[in-house]
């Protein structure tokens, strides 16, 4: 079936089977391999993307469900110069990235949180990333990176 939707700000039109997941569409049909497949059953969050402002598991979403909607993947998260944005830089700065497999999902979970709640507590950050498993870091550095980004974005807003 023909699918048309907005992907990372650009319009996409593609023919794809009705029975594939959004994760498969992104990786195998669109060649966008930033979104990772971890468990494939909605338990690890590696495949997280944002649809119409909400964080979801792309392994539990049919590709067809994206039709007519706005999808943001890790490829759509970048700074004005095309490099990493402030949150991604903080992930590096705070040592939040080890093997890196969970990071696309973690960054999207962080962005989804900061869009809805620009001033989260550490507890709220923990809740926001509770659907994303990381087996390397022990999470503290990821929480630090999101917390620091919230603080610096607030600072920017005050001075803007």
């Amino acid at each position, binding site marked *: 079936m023909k699918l048309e939707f907005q992907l990372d700000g650009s319009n996409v039109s593609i023919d794809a089977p*009705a029975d594939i*997941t959004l994760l498969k569409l992104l990786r195998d049909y669109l060649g966008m391999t930033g979104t990772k497949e971890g468990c494939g*059953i909605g338990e690890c969050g590696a495949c997280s993307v944002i649809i119409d402002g909400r964080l979801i*598991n792309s392994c539990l979403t*049919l590709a067809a469900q994206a039709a007519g909607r706005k999808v943001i993947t890790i490829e759509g998260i970048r700074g004005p110069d095309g490099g990493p944005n402030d949150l991604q830089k903080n992930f590096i700065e705070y040592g939040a990235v080890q093997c890196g497999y969970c990071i696309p999902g973690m960054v999207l979970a962080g962005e989804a949180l900061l869009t809805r709640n620009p001033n989260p507590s550490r507890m709220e950050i923990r*809740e926001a990333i509770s*659907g994303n498993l990381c087996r390397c870091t022990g999470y503290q550095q990821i929480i630090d990176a999101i917390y620091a980004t919230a603080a610096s974005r607030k600072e920017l807003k005050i001075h803007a």
Partner: protein
Amino acid sequence: MEKFHYIRATSVTEAIELLNEPGIVSRPLAGGTDLVLLARLDKICDRVVDITQIPELHQIMRNNDQIVIGAGATFSEIIESGIVQETAPVLVQACCQIGAPQIRNMGTIGGNVANAAACADSIPALVCLDAVATVLTKNGEHRWPVAELIVRPNRTQIPKGGLLVSLSYIAPQPGSRSTFLKLGRRNALAISRLTIAALGRLDSAGMIAETRIVPGSATPQIVRFTRVEAGLVGQLPTESLCREASLQTVAEMTGITGRRWSSEFKEPALQAMVNRALLQVFGLSQRLSQNTEGLAI
């Protein structure tokens, strides 16, 4: 070849038409968190009818004391709803403890009820609210109390071609307190081992005027334990009364299920949870659930 086809319904009327189209086995796609997994494993239908983008199914409305939640409302939408926060903290607490943010953004209350898992978290809360399910078929509208809609795990009375469209409840009387406790292996993304939804209200003399006790993941059908409830009404709430009621709840559970491999764990766990829940709803404990502090009505 495609395992199934996909079609999106834009209204409830259209969804009912599509679900009843002759010669095609159709299944409604609500949140997809169960269905997409099932459909990948087995051939379960010829076509999924996507009902996630039907605006009327997401509505949460209040008409005096009656609250109607569209079956397509996601757990996140319910948690964020001022109407539900004000009238049913027990449901907000239950929804807060489902899955993780991603699952709560996708999963719907209607899907949770229609899937009818014995461990579903929203069902004990809905049964505690005496919620009624409204099902539309091509022949008209049917209503069942949620506790009766589900006949056994993963089996409901929703007829073929029918669509669960809303869940409604009457707001508990002012002065009611309610709580939902969940026991899982960890906080996020845990299948419930046991849950308890409870409600309590005291009269002006401080005696128990009303109480509702609904254990989840404990019995094949999620129901109010009315015998335990009846024994509490008219009594002065005390720690020993709560303890007695929690022991009686455990005895009722074992009476229904018989002693099983899990009883050794479930009996003391349920006892402690019911005890804690009753202490909370009768105002004998300050320890309210962290997520919804201050939400008790």
